[in-house]
């Protein structure tokens, strides 16, 4: 199997900030790679370099066999891009938007029109086809934008944070659509901040931080890399949370995470059930009232935290602070 995307030592700097710091990877044809990382990790920059929107300061990359620097136009005929912000024209209808994209892929008038109708049907937008995009919901905009990326049936697709800003239902529907596209044999490079999204859609996940790849593997491989299980407890007061943190340090094989708001504590352990039994016993002796207790497999959030030392999608600075 050959590679649909290759990147070797990509470097991109914005003044003092290094967005890409020698990033290398490849994506075999017909597979899905998710770039996982927080804002500013270099995910979008990677997509922009690979889709020829941005020239890299160093390194080289090919997509569908074409070089991003020297063969940009031929490369562009083989890719579809759907960005973080829906790249559609608000004043144009859904059908007009897709037709315009078809014309710009040089499909010709007739094929562009037919293809637009086909995609509108596939994305369940037939009813809205002749209404300006301005009146579309967030989910509909995402769908029309994604449809725009598929107009020329490109063998390589780039989706930059496809579900950002969508409600859970719209997100689930979008995931189904993406899964269908991938099942048809396209290669997909996806960026996301959501572990769940990477877990759901990708064959391989590459964790990116500060413009560097810090881990790569399947979701299961990454979870195994972090190892063991997690004890997750909910106590009844902030004082008890602190007591629990001190007492359970003895069991921990990695960083203990506490979330003061929800009085939760997560402890990575090796021998799960035995550790849980002992922990509960000791806490009971110390008079700590445990409201909820459980044992779980590590999530990709745990993977991320362990690998980077900071949380991936945690927007709450306090919760993030508490994990240090």
């Amino acid at each position, binding site marked *: 199997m050959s590679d649909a995307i290759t990147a070797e030592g990509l470097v991109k700097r914005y003044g003092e900030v290094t967005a890409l710091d020698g990033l290398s990877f490849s994506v075999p044809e017909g597979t899905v790679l998710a770039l996982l990382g927080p804002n500013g990790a270099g995910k979008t920059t990677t997509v922009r370099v690979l889709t020829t*929107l*941005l020239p890299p300061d160093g390194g080289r990359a090919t997509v569908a066999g074409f070089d991003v620097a020297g063969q940009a136009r031929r490369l562009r005929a083989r890719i579809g*891009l759907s*960005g973080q912000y829906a*790249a559609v024209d608000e004043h144009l209808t859904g059908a007009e938007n897709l037709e315009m994209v078809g014309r710009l*892929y040089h499909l010709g008038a007739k094929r562009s029109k037919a293809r637009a109708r086909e995609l509108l049907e596939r994305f369940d937008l037939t009813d809205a086809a002749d209404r300006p995009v301005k009146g579309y919901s967030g989910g509909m905009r995402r769908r029309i934008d994604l449809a725009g990326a598929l107009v020329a049936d490109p063998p390589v697709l780039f989706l930059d944070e496809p579900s950002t800003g969508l409600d859970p239902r719209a997100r689930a529907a979008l995931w189904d659509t993406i899964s269908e596209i991938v099942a048809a044999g396209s290669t997909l490079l996806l960026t996301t901040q959501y572990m769940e999204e990477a877990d759901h859609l990708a064959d391989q996940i590459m964790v990116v931080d500060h413009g560097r790849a810090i881990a790569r593997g399947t979701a299961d491989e990454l979870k195994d890399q972090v190892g063991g299980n997690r004890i997750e407890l909910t106590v009844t007061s902030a004082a008890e949370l602190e007591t629990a943190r001190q007492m359970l340090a003895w069991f921990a094989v990695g960083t203990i995470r506490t979330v003061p708001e929800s009085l939760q504590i997560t402890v990575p352990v090796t021998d799960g059930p035995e550790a849980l039994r002992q922990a509960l016993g000791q806490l009971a002796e110390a008079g700590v009232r445990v409201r909820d207790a459980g044992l779980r497999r590590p999530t990709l959030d745990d993977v991320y935290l362990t690998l980077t030392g900071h949380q991936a999608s945690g927007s709450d600075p306090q919760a993030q602070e508490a994990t240090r």
Partner: protein
Amino acid sequence: MNALTMPIVDGWTIAKRNTLKIRRSPDLLGAAVMFPIVFVLMFAYVFGSVIHVPGMSYREFLLPGIFVQAVLISAQTTGYTLTLDLQKGIFDRFRSLPMAPSAVLIGQTVSDLLMNLASLIVMAVMGLIVGWRVHTSPFEAVLGFGLLLLFAYAFSWVTATVALALRTPESFNNIATMVSFPLMFISNAYLDSSKLPTVLRVVAEWNPVSTFTKAARELFGNTSAALKTSDAWPLQHAIPVSLLWIAVMLIVFVPLATRLYKKAVSA
């Protein structure tokens, strides 16, 4: 498709998109149709009731100036629309397509030229209603409108350049207003500039707006022997100097705008 036809074909696709957009956005349509009507009425009746031009009616003197003013303002749509598009992701989509990169600016300027044509037609009709007449041959009149449209097209590239340098609609509008008002008022568009104090008179004589206005007056025959003509070189040779201005604007600003576009979208 080759390197020569692709910018034209793609530019036309983009121009069609912009034309649809203009048809659907009342604010742009309003700017294209309502402004000319208001301008003609306002200047013809407000200024017209105070200002007197020797040997001819003020409205006949005024209309070519109003045409130039309308073109100057309409051409700013190009810059303004570009700054709006820059705020959205649409340029990323365009740049990820195998289209000619130059097509975006070509399409934008061409569709704005069509809008300018529509606005000039509305204006000419309004002018005829308030008493403006063409006193030359139909051929020269067509040349007059042709010259105005060429100016409109060339000036679109100037506003595109400014817009791509500034990148936000707010700052673009500020600069556009600050520059276009003095350009319009320190000129011979609304009054006989030979009566201005020396400094203002010299500025007015060399102001391209005066040159275009003078050229339009000559081509439409809205001149009077009783009106003192300036000795300034650009006004003595208004038509060739207008063409020179158009050439200079295109030669300087087409490549400049194209370069700035590439820079603006690959940040």
